[in-house]
């Protein structure tokens, strides 16, 4: 449906004071890669999320799709239609933003404060080329139908700025989908709302996207939002795509340390692969041997990092015989978080965070046993 190949966008950077390796060779304005060779494909009806910390290039990628930013190189195509293309030796194509026929929800919603709710939504229809523009009657019908879906019909004649935050968000969405675009772009649409509202709108957004069946590209820095909404997640860092996959895969099998750290919290234990049998690996660490399952292909002797989520570990004061990956440690500190209790366990030089059911709370100083199920451990290569 949407296909992006080798997208590159640089900005003229500020004069760097010192180059990263200390040679001082970076004189003059260095080019900063906002987006560096990014390629991906979004399938029909998918909600595809670009996830990453601020400055990772996710918004620049989205704005390049919208036509608000002109990439340096790459190819953007929507089904058969080329929106942007710049390749050496080929005719460049850059369809202006107002001819791409996409829908977009902005971070600030960008609701026009001088128009009513109705006029905000009617605008994209009113500015269509004369030949394609629907009649007044049809415009009114279509706007009201969309407002109905968004449960805003009763506010049609109100001034847009009189709406609450959640209503404004729905209005921005209504305006984006009124022309029934083939692709919907959402730039951190929930980040301006307070935590409670964000949570409820997250589900509403998911429901609306499914009901309307619009293929969507969603940009966010909130990993929980990304996990809850997406059909597919692409994690970006420093302008590059670092991992792409279904939310569960990305969460459970981060392909590198950045992803493991950025999405949720992780404990990292470094070690060396000492042997493997099919997908069952043995890793030697300073504090003991770990058995784990991984589809990765790593020869013996590879230096690796084993990552495990805090909620995937079990804690008990008794040793349970016959279970693999059972380490003994000492409770350093604990914190009651309401729906869980976090313990920090000292094992050798490591400090591991373990999230437990609130019924389990072990006083600091107690000796405990830590169990790590092999299918919950993932192998992350060292760079």
């Amino acid at each position: 449906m949407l296909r992006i190949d080798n997208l590159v966008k640089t900005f003229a950077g500020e004069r760097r004071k010192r180059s990263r390796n200390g040679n001082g060779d970076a004189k003059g304005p260095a080019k900063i890669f906002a987006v560096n060779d990014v390629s991906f494909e979004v399938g029909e009806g998918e909600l595809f999320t670009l996830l990453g910390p601020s400055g990772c290039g996710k918004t620049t990628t989205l704005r390049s799709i919208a036509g608000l930013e002109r990439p340096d190189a790459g190819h953007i195509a929507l089904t058969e239609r080329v929106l942007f293309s710049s390749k050496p030796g080929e005719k460049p194509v850059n369809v202006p933003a107002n001819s791409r026929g996409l829908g977009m929800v902005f971070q600030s919603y960008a609701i026009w404060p001088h128009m009513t709710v109705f006029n905000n939504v009617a605008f994209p229809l009113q500015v269509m080329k004369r030949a394609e523009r629907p009649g007044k009657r049809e415009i009114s019908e279509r706007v009201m139908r969309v407002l109905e879906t968004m449960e805003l019909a009763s506010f049609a004649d109100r001034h847009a700025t009189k709406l609450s935050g959640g209503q404004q968000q729905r209005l921005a969405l209504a305006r984006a989908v009124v022309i029934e675009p083939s692709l919907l772009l959402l730039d951190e649409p929930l980040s301006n709302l307070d935590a409670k509202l964000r949570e409820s709108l997250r589900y509403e957004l998911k429901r609306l996207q499914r009901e309307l069946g619009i293929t969507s590209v969603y940009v966010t820095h909130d990993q929980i939002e990304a996990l809850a909404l997406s059909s597919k997640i692409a994690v970006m860092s420093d302008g590059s795509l670092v991992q792409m996959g279904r939310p569960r895969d990305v969460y459970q099998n981060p392909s590198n340390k950045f992803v493991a750290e950025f999405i949720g919290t992780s404990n990292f234990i470094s070690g060396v692969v000492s042997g493997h049998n099919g997908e069952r690996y043995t890793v030697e660490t300073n504090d003991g041997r770990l058995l784990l399952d991984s589809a990765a292909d790593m020869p013996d002797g590879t230096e690796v990092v084993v990552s495990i989520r805090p909620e995937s570990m079990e804690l008990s004061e008794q040793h349970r015989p016959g279970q693999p990956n059972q380490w003994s440690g000492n409770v350093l500190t604990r914190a009651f978080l309401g729906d869980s209790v976090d313990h920090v366990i000292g094992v050798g030089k490591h400090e591991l965070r373990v999230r437990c059911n609130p019924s389990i709370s072990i006083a600091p100083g107690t000796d405990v046993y830590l169990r790590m199920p092999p299918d919950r451990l993932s192998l992350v290569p060292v760079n």
Partner: protein
Amino acid sequence: MMTTASPAVGTDTVAASAWWRRWLPTPKMLILGVVGLVIGYLALVPLYYLLWGTFFDADGVSVAGFERAYGNSQIFELIGNSLWFAAGAAVLSLVVGTALAYLNVRTDVPFKALFFAASIVPLIIPGILYTISWILLASPEIGLVNKLVEPVFGSGTFDVFTIWGMIWVEGLHLSPIVFLLMVAAFRSMDPSLEESALMSGATRWQVFRKVTVPLARPAIVASILIMVVRSLESFEVPALLGLQNGIYVFTSRIYFVLRSYPPDFAAAGALAVGLLILAIIGVALSNIVGRSGKNYQTVTGKGFRPRPMELGKWRSVVGAGIILYFILTVIAPLVVLLYTSLLKYYTAPTLNVFKTMTLENYRELIGMSKAVTALRNSLILGIGSATLVMAFMAIAAWFVVRSRVRGRQVVDQLAFVPLVIPGLVLGLALSFVYLRSPIPIYGTLFILLIAYCTRYMPYGMRYAVTSMHQISSELEESAHVSGASWWQTFRRVIVPLLAPGLLAGWVYILVVSFRELSSSILLYSPGNEVLSILIFEQFEDGEFTVLSALGVVMVLTLILLVSIAYKLGAKVGLNRTN
């Protein structure tokens, strides 16, 4: 899923033809191009002709004009007077304006509303009327204040026709501007900076000296430079007060040279170039100061509600001082105008005089076709120049703030060029242009319209650019993504959102062009007088009573225009907050 293979989709034909169309000028490019050219023309052509008219005569390049202008012993006196007058007026306005601003923003001074009236009203009174009121108040022969103190100090105690009188009038007329600048500076200053000094054990006075003043220093230095430039450019005060006793400054000398027969254009041009250089130095210095001030930027954009300092026992003293200031700067000049307008001939008030007051002068005004024409001309020019400037500057501001065209900053800088050109110099330059050009507008209202548009272009640009910055670019981008063309976006999204800022600029330009004198005086021709010119003519004829009636009409018209505009503005503003 992550693939780097080249896509199988071909380049579609619609996009390909769009690529060819890129080379044809779009309506957007045409509009922007026209606006850029007009701004460049208004800013640069007068300067070019000014230099040309100054340095070229029938025989080619010549500095004879400079020799005639500067080659006499009076030149040092002229420069001395100019600088003394400018510096004196700047210091007076700075001291008064800053003190009032500090009291108003940071203390629990009484009569805060009166304060603002005292600061805004002198801005509305045209300079020529303000100067004439002070002649009526403090001229040694007829001044009312002199008559008042005569029994005690003897006759002619105060003489407004001296350099001190000039400084006094100009300084008081400028102080509201300093007041507004400093109020903005004090308001944006984080009070916690002062509070933390207090908590460190400093006394109020130490805090003021060591924290408040250093923080406000960029604003103070910037205001003083702006005031020096404004007083250098001032024409009304030097012409009306200085010429009487032969105290010449640059502006009045230029006027004098042009009014002698035959007018020496080259010498006037040489003086104008000198004045222009002084003004450029002042503006450049204030820009440098303004830029270095950003090093300790105190403006954070947060709204502060500083706890006012308690004046205690000084509160009543300061309150009395404010009433006195209000009487001196607002009440006295306006009352004396009104009083004079009701007399048959100017005289000090006695019981007898009040009995003989008539509306005869106003009746005469209605019958005077010149006065009606002048009022009409002023209205046409004010509304015309305000509308034209704001319309062009709205587009120019988009070009400067939003477009990514290389060199867009040049348009911004060009629009600011007229800021350094004194009105009288602009008038002279424009007369050079249109005396020589084949366009037959010399001696018509058009040349005045061009002069006003040029002079007030920088202010229009400031208003438009400031409000453009306040419109989030996402509002525009969302219209673009919705399918709107540039012109549709501009008309339906940007202009309505800019409206309050554009209206504010429109009102400002209307007010200042309504009282413009210094460039009009060199460009008007009989039959095309504007109000301020008519007042100037009547002053020269000694017609004080009719003049005062005309002045009262002018002030009332201005107040009416400003209040209508604010009513309209309130409506637009309401729409926005609704």
